[in-house]
């Protein structure tokens, strides 16, 4: 199948293969969930639902999205405090804590907002 017959180039002449739109969202959510589960999602899960199982790689997409949505909605309430803690001039925090704060800022300011309907933003000249 993966030969050099030229079948691939013949096929892509007329057909484009796309990841299902829902799967783009799902894949991005999975990546964020997995990457930040140790610092946020797992502790949050166990705080909200004591004695229930947390799945780092096998959580349902709906579970992931609803928790991200609500956490992101709460972000403005804690943002200023965390950004202030992340300033180089602020002491008193261990290296691990500083790293944790920086990761949370990245998660809410960049990672979660980057998951969006990219297709509607494609300008005509691209």
């Amino acid at each position: 199948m993966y030969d050099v017959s030229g079948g691939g180039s013949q096929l892509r002449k007329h057909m484009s293969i796309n990841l299902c739109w829902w799967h783009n969202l799902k894949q991005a959510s999975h990546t964020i969930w997995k990457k930040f589960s140790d610092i946020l999602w797992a502790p949050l899960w166990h705080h909200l639902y004591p004695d229930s199982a947390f799945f780092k790689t096998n959580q349902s997409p709906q579970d992931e999205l609803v928790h991200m949505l609500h956490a992101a909605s709460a972000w403005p309430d804690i943002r200023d405090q965390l950004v202030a803690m992340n300033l180089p001039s602020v002491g008193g925090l261990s290296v691990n804590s500083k790293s944790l704060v920086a990761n949370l800022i990245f998660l809410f300011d960049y990672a979660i907002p980057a998951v969006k309907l990219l297709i509607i933003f494609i300008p005509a000249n691209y």
Partner: protein
Amino acid sequence: MTSAYVIWVDNYNDSWRRGFAKLGRNSYSQNNWTGVALRQGQENIDMSVVKIDGQIVPAMPDDPLLFTQQAVDMILMGSVGPIDRSTIDLHNIETIPSLYDTSLLVAWAPINRVPLKPDPSNKNIPRYYRDVLSQAPDTLGNFHVVGIFEENIGSNEGLASIIKKFYDSQGMEAQDCHRYFAMTADMNIHKRLLRVICDLV
């Protein structure tokens, strides 16, 4: 102008496997069938082939990662408007403008449906997007079943067989094939198809 549609393919019988406690479970767990459907477009999109100097412009580039830079720029630009790329170092978050304040979550608030979907009656959403959302293009009304193929698309042989069926039935081999086709698939199928279509081994 020909109407646009997207070909959808996926393993068919996952729900059947879950539905059976014991009877026939092994048969259904093998994903021996593939469901095929067409998702109909809501707007008139010209799918006719584009030619430059008499040659058809391919539906896909040779290198699927060719536009990675543009995709990254669009993620940034979509939220904060035109950007000065020279001031941004993607390895240094201090140089990336925050995406949160201009994200859809804030700009189109409140968004609280799961799966995520903005509310078409929300006046914070620009009129064009509200109109598109109101059309509900993702409903089953625009989803037309073609059939169930007796092939396991999870196997390379089944995948090749199904693609060949499309290729032949749509007359893509003919010199006068005058339109493009779009196919959507899940992660596993998409990844394997990319390997074939773009000769990524």
